[in-house]
């Protein structure tokens, strides 16, 4: 990681095209394979084999987190776009359970159908009706915690490696973060 790398990353997050991130998340399993995950989390800086197990576990846990983030993001992305662009959403409640819902429309919504109703197909209802009950909120609470933990691991590990490479840190230890089985962060001094 160099200042030039940081510039490239900031340039990339300024320039990416609409649709790039949904596509990236759709292919998350192949995009973030073991080698890419290792590199992004900064573990490729560790050559000492004694950390292999903790690195492997952290990569597996990161990939599990990313699958959950991707699934949740892709499920909500269309309604978010409807909310953001044109405010094409309506609040509602499920008739029997009184469950909180959001209904949205997009360019694929049938022109002659105002909202899904009892005669609509399951696929149609699954796509255009978003449940916003407490259980769904709890899922979002957890997955947003995963997002934050992953951000901290990426940012702090790459910052630590940059600091080491730029000789600000003369130690042969890197203080790196790992994602544990509970999807929380462990920090470990790694001998390099």
């Amino acid at each position, binding site marked *: 990681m160099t*200042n030039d790398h*940081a510039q490239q990353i*900031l340039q990339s*997050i300024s320039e990416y095209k609409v649709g*790039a991130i949904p596509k990236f*998340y759709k292919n998350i399993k192949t*995009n973030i394979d073991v080698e890419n995950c290792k590199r992004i989390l900064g573990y490729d800086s560790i050559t000492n084999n004694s950390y292999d197990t903790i690195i492997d576990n952290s990569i597996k846990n990161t990939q599990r987190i990313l699958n959950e983030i991707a699934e949740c993001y892709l499920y909500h992305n269309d309604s978010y776009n409807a909310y953001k662009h044109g405010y094409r959403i309506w609040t509602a409640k499920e008739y029997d359970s009184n469950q909180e819902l959001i209904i949205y429309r997009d360019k694929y919504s049938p022109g002659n159908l105002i909202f899904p109703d009892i005669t609509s197909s399951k696929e149609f209802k699954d796509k255009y009706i978003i449940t916003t009950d407490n259980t769904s909120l709890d899922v979002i609470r957890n997955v*947003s915690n995963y997002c*934050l933990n992953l951000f901290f691991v990426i940012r702090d590990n790459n*910052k630590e490696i940059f600091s080491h490479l730029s000789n600000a840190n003369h130690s042969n230890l890197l203080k790196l973060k790992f994602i544990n089985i509970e999807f929380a962060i462990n920090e470990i001094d790694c001998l390099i």
Partner: protein
Amino acid sequence: MSNNNISYPLMNTTMTELLYQHYSLDSIKYVIDMHLELVNSLDNILSRDDPLREKKISIFRYEVFARFTHLAESLGSLLFAFYNLKKR
């Protein structure tokens, strides 16, 4: 209007500092947490006589999902950027 006289705290910051010290993706998570707290409190805050009460509660609940999508998209863009580094 000229902006020549504007000073800002990150004026002499390197790109690395901008990314690793000042990039505040975590701020979006604070917004999600605040919305989650508000969702729990709205029932007490909003008047029962308010004809828009139900709609206000529903849209606040949806805001949690919207902000999550914002957070996940931003995290995705960062991952996408790191992913593309190897190709440059």
